[in-house]
């Protein structure tokens, strides 16, 4: 399959402080692509730059062959219709009920009637196991439920791209595993390309088909490939160590 996302020479910086430099990689259509690396290496910053929430110091991001970085705001908005994004905390709008949160993308981008919207909201909530919670506010449900509700909002418009920022952060192992399975199932059945930031090894091995490793020390992309391959065959000890829970040499056979 062709490249759905192409990142070229991307340099991320806050003011003069460089976070990551010269990142070049491609995400193929249908991949579950994981951005991994140690804490504070700039994984979430990379995602925010890919989403246009922050502007890269240099470089370009293309979706389906069209540059996003240099597109006009109107065009960017149009491209974003193809995206579903969930943030670390879920980022549901706290002043709105779950139904209103889910209804928002439909109101913005479709001309569906209120009844049609309610039916679709009901379907998406049942997909993430939250049927019946339409009238709850985000503060009235648990953290895991909020993340699932955010996932439901992200898939309201059947997006081509799904982005996740540390989806399982703060969840217990069972909820975390269920969320991973849910993401994998939804992405596969909808044919979406998934880009996920995480350092949870269980998530990485469970669902990732491709990955990149961002290094904290050299501040650039150290290696890329399927995580299971990198676990044993990465040229870089630090990548093997990361994927083997800090016991690289023993697990990688020396």
């Amino acid at each position, binding site marked *: 399959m062709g490249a759905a996302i192409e990142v070229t020479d991307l340099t991320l910086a806050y003011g003069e402080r460089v976070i990551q430099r010269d990142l070049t990689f491609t995400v193929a259509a249908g991949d579950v692509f994981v951005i991994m690396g140690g804490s504070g290496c700039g994984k979430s910053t990379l995602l925010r730059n890919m989403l246009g929430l922050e502007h890269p110091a240099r470089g370009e991001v293309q979706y389906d062959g069209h540059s996003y970085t240099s597109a006009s705001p109107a065009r960017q908005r149009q491209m974003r219709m193809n995206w579903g994004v969930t943030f670390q905390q879920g980022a549901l709008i706290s002043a709105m009920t779950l139904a209103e949160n889910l209804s928002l993308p439909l109101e*913005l981008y479709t001309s569906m009637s209120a009844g049609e919207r309610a039916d679709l909201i009901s379907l998406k909530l049942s997909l993430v196991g939250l049927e019946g919670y339409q009238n709850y506010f985000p503060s009235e449900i648990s953290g895991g439920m909020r993340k699932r509700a955010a996932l439901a909002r992200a898939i309201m418009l059947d997006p081509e791209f799904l982005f996740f920022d540390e989806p399982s952060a703060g969840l217990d192992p069972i909820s975390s595993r269920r969320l991973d399975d849910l993401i994998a199932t939804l992405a596969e059945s909808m044919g979406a390309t998934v880009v996920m930031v995480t350092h949870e090894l269980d998530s990485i091995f469970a669902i990732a088909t491709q990955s990149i490793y961002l290094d904290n020390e050299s501040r650039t992309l150290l290696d890329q490939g399927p995580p299971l391959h990198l676990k044993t065959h990465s040229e870089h000890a630090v990548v093997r160590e990361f994927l083997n829970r800090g016991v690289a040499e023993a697990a990688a056979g020396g």
Partner: protein
Amino acid sequence: MRDDALQITRDDRQMLVVLRGSWSRETSHLDPATLLADIGSLSTLKIDASEVDDWDSTLVQAAIALRARANAQDLELLEDWPPGVSKLLVLADAVPGARPEDQQGGNSRATLWSRLDPRVASRAVGSEVANLAEFVGALVLSGLGLVTGSGRGRFRDFLYFCYQTGPNALPIISLTSFLVGLILGYLGAVQLKQFGAEIYVADLVTVGVLREMGPLMTAIILAGRTGAAYAAQLGTMRVNEEVDAIEILGVSPMEFLVLPRVAAIIVMTPLLTLFANVLGILGGGLVSSGLGVTPLQYWSEVQVALYPSHLVVGLVKAVLFGALVGIAGCRAGLNSGRNSEGVGKATTEAVVVAMVYLIIADALVNITCQLLDI
């Protein structure tokens, strides 16, 4: 401290330092500076601390200082520390990742002096004015978008914020405006009584409250109450990434979050000001009645002083002040840092900036009215 805790033997070439017993904060302290004050022709320093049986971090700190000093003075150092100290020394030496100063850019916190520099200060004022103009411009464009039908503000939010800003503020506005009317009355009474002109307290209070104190006190209360609340709400939404989520959905936070809030405060401030005016005049009435002026006399004198122009100037100020408080609050909230400290700072900024805007705007309106003879 044991007598043999520190034992030093030296010859021309070598110094042997033996440590024993307890080396901690409360007991003995090893001072490398004293130890190596006069090294003469020494070439080797040997530390034997293998018999130390109780130590804490001060010994590790002393060991690090000793290494640095020995290195600076070109001494060969042979060390034998307790196993725990050796492990901590290895940890302290190993620095994973880059140190802060190795990173590009670095920490550019401005010092007090640099901020007092007139050039720096004028640049700061310039950028503040530019940011404010940009924010107001974006807000006006969003407002126009709403009028032309392409916007996405929510009318329900507007009504909710009207309720929060207006009716909910009535008790505190009542109290402050009544007391301000009372204070104005007393101020005037003290002077006017000397001329037997107590009746004119009514004029002073009416003009003072309508033109100045009504709108200003209302705006100050709203800055502390509503402006700060706006900053805290939007700041928290920033921390929770709700603002990002709204942007990703393709909605401008300006239309969706700022516009309903600023519109609500612009609508509610003149209404609250009218209410404050009435309470202020009543406060003045209470003072007058203490001076022997009957309520009827007071009321008829109030009517004499109540020119429509006073009321209009006051209400124009109220609209302007409401907009400024709303803008200061929303701008601080949207620009908040992504942590709890950022929300706190945004709230403070909302109130402080609103106060500065209010005073400057009030002065400008008064000067303009003076020039136009209104």
